[in-house]
């Protein structure tokens, strides 16, 4: 990472600078990222990233932070000050930056758990939708299987349905496909429990319903080209 200084100046030229770039990443990643990963992706030193993380964390918590982006060339952690109004004042955000299992991500603030919980429950049903059931069925009979594959079989984008099924504990990640690196999914023991069977092998054969399964298999593989 010898290009660090170049990259830092490039980021600094963007509106909001390094802080905003880091914020952009933290806001959309769907799993926590370590400061080392963030440093590599932003092409900054790990120390600098940790400094920026701390700055963001304080800012979201409503502390006034002396904006450090102008001081990008002087990496001294002491610059980051919890203090009375200096450059800008900030209100306490509805989200916070948290370090979970060694990684960083932005989450909704714990104080609002009741509100968020109500929102989550609103519109949630105790029943799976037809789309979710069918997706689950495909995963059950084709596991381990990638989302792309399930999409191809169902003929629709299944990203959000898969997320729901993971949230519901019915399916889980099961490594990645060697060639593509795509995440594979399999059913969980909770799924077996709900269905009332002991193992996946006990799933009823579906061949009788579906003549020429092998041919179909090939058809789908061809589809994905």
């Amino acid at each position: 990472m010898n290009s660090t200084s170049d990259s830092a100046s490039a980021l600094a030229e963007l509106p909001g600078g390094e802080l905003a770039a880091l914020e952009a990443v933290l806001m959309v990643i769907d799993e926590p990222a370590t400061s080392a990963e963030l440093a590599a992706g932003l092409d900054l030193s790990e120390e600098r990233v940790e400094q920026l993380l701390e700055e963001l964390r304080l800012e979201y918590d409503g502390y006034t932070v002396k904006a450090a982006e102008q001081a990008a060339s002087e990496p001294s952690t002491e610059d980051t000050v919890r203090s009375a109004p200096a450059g800008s004042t900030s209100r306490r955000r509805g989200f916070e930056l948290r370090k979970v299992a060694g990684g960083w991500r932005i989450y909704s603030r714990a104080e609002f758990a009741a509100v968020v919980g109500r929102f989550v429950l609103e519109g949630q049903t105790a029943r799976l939708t037809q789309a979710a059931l069918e997706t689950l069925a495909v995963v059950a009979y084709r596991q381990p299987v990638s989302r792309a594959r399930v999409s191809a079989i169902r003929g629709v984008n299944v990203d959000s349905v898969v997320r729901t099924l993971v949230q519901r504990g019915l399916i889980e990640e099961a490594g990645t496909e060697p060639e593509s690196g795509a995440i594979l999914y399999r059913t969980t023991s909770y799924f077996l429990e709900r269905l009332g069977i002991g193992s996946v092998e006990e799933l009823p054969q579906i061949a009788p319903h579906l003549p020429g399964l092998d041919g179909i298999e090939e058809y789908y593989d061809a589809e994905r080209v």
Partner: protein
Amino acid sequence: MPAQAAESGVGPKTGFEVRLENFTGPFDLLLGLISKRQLDITEVALSSVTDDFIGYIRRLQALGEEWALDEASEFLVIAATLLDLKAARLLPSGQVEDEEDIALLEARDLLFARLLQYKAFKEVASLIGDTFDRESLRFPRQGSLEPHFAAMLPELVWRHTPEQFARLAAKALRPKEKPPTEVGLDHLHAPPVSVREQAGIIGQLLRHGGPLSFRVLVAGAESKLVVVARFLALLEMFRDRVVAFEQLTPLGELTVRWSGPDAGWSSEHVADDYDAGPPSEAEADGLPGAPHNDPSPAKEAGIP
């Protein structure tokens, strides 16, 4: 299949001479040729563009590309229209005299109307493409429920027995539609015109009226579909060796002569591929009409 190749092509267009497969269809090609000559669609110098168009199809053929019938047919329909229009221009100029001239004018207007329409969609397609590109720079937050929220979700109601679940799986795994192994005829909803019947009429005309031009043979046709059916019937009859074609000059009058027995031939012999609904398979892969040495041009039924 050139159109298939185009469907997967992503590269920038670098001119049709170098990247033959780059056009996504006949209209795209035609527009490309017109803009290459910096012409206004509404006042196209038809003869030169027609030559280019035909030249493009020839080069494709020379490359030994196999054409899917329904794709090739669109190219050919347009090539034929262009040729017609060009031929009309080459003729000594005259007033609009007979119905054929009017039909030709209509064909031209239709072709240009369709071309204009395609052009409009091509333009908005590129706007949509630009917007996609611009929007792909933004990534949405994929909010996921933290475990303590997930735990608040109501217990799942589950009513499926393993057997019901298996039936659901079978349904979900069944292919949504058959792969396109056949030429689509779904869009042909015209009242059925029987090729066999038309063959009978042509046989009648030829045996009793001597050699006739194709123009005369289709003169009484009440619709485009009947013309097509008669054309197909002629191909069938040619295969049965009961008619012979004669064309003295390129683009000249096509004369059809009866070469079969005076008696004993009946249109019943004409294969009923055309009249029995969509064909069960599409073996046709050549250019319709072109390979007359092909022993079985009989399945070329996909002219839309």
